[in-house]
């Protein structure tokens, strides 16, 4: 636990303070990591968001029909996506595919002496390896979430258009007029917090690996399990915070 907070402090130092003192992290590496962590997750995140948009619309339609309130299906879809399911599901996908990959990669580097080699070459591993991944995740998870929200809306539209005889313009207008900026912002705040938790846990687990292939496997599992757990708790806490204030 102490190590985890120390890692956070070091990441902050090397991201914010060190560049002022002339020690920059590698900018090109940030973009490279953005591709690995974010862009490559786009197909999976899209598929998930689309199916969730679809499911949400069907569930909402089923329930609202009884009250004759089918007109509110788009409202329900967009609000659930923006506030809750968009950030949450995108984070789940990113934990499963990018968080675990970061842990496995760093863990393998640790056991094959690569990280020690960096230290001995007087290259700080936090600056060289962790900061680019950290920034990439902080940018890409919220970006993926916004993208996922759009795809989720398309999922909702599919049901509304083909099963409920909505026309496209009405669906969009209805959604947009219902959603307030704060709905989007609260989702984005969540997404940002999730990104921070996911990448710091993934890096921490990776850097702590000891003992060969078995250690890498355990750390990768640990990274996914802890990230999910902490992310869900953070989600509940943030929702409570937004709800009660």
């Amino acid at each position, binding site marked *: 636990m102490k190590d985890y907070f120390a890692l956070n402090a070091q990441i902050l130092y090397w991201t914010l303070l060190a560049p002022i003192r002339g020690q920059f992290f590698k900018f090109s590496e940030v973009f490279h990591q953005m591709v690995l962590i974010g862009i490559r997750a786009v197909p999976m995140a899209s598929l998930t968001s689309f199916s969730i948009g679809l499911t949400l619309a069907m569930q909402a339609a089923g329930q609202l029909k009884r009250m004759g309130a089918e007109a509110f299906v788009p409202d329900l879809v967009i609000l659930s996506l923006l506030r809750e399911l968009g950030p949450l599901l995108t984070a789940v996908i990113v934990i499963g595919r990018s968080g675990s990959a970061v842990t496995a990669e760093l863990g*393998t*580097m640790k056991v*094959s*002496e*690569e990280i*020690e*080699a*960096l*230290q*001995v*070459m*007087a*290259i*700080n591993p936090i600056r*060289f390896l962790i900061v680019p991944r950290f920034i990439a995740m902080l940018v890409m998870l919220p970006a993926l979430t916004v993208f996922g929200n759009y795809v989720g809306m398309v999922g909702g539209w599919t049901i509304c258009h083909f099963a409920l005889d909505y026309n496209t313009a009405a669906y969009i207008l209805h959604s947009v007029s219902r959603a307030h900026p704060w709905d989007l912002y609260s989702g984005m705040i969540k997404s940002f917090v999730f990104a921070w938790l996911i990448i710091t846990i993934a890096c921490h687990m990776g850097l702590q690996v000891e003992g060969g292939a078995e250690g890498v496997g355990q750390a990768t599992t640990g990274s996914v399990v802890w990230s999910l757990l902490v992310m869900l708790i953070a989600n509940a806490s943030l929702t409570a915070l937004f709800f009660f204030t």
Partner: protein
Amino acid sequence: MSAATPDSTPVIEVTDLVRDFHGRKVLNGISFKVMKGDTMIIMGGSGCGKSTLLRHIIGAMKPTSGSIKLFGEEITGMMEKELAHIRRRFGVLFQSGALLQSMTVGENVALPILEHGKLDPEIVDLMVKMKLEMVGLTGFEHLKPAEISGGMKKRVGLARALALDPELLFSDEPTAGLDPIMTSVVDILTQEMTRKLGVTAVVVTHDMTSAFRIGSKMIMLGTGPNQGKIIAMGTPDEMRSNPHGEVQQFIKGEPDGPVPLRLSKGDYVERLLGHPGAGRTSYSV
């Protein structure tokens, strides 16, 4: 101030180094000095703590007690930042090569050059080519470490260790896994650096041919009851004539001697069949 001139200050000075791993003393009161231009060979059987000693000297591990001075500066209590300053003056060749798998051979060699200086890309390219030429790997710049053999990785590791023209070179088993020809190439390279450029080298090895070819000073770490202690120290000639049984056994590569053939002591049959008080392990598939 003392009358010591820079040349008489040891490059490395290790005093009473102790490292305790959960009550097991892997290093137990190690003291030695390495002067400028020396090639110090650290030898000893497997598990005697050679690599651990090397890791302490390069600052990758902290000792339980004792002192380590590099270039006259105490490194045991140093912060990472101060240590980084010292580390720019030496190169390390790791046992496995420790190349970054995500980068090409050329990028690996260029890494320390790019990180510690602002040079034109053309000059960096030239330097990388020169270093790779030195280890006989011209034209391999664009391959990934996974695409070259173990011996080649080690040579790339050496090229990387030499990238910044260090004053001090540490090699952990530089010749293990190399064919006899490449072994002598690496040996000659080390020799040239120490003799022509005045580089100091510390080489951990158990390849005796190579050790006697390049070493100007040697220390040997003991195993068993002498675990973690220096049992012999001196020039190659002094080591050859050292009366210590374990040293002679090691140099000549004899299977039995002070280090017994069967390392587990006690009654073999009793151990095999179990006796009261001895734990049994049950294996299952």
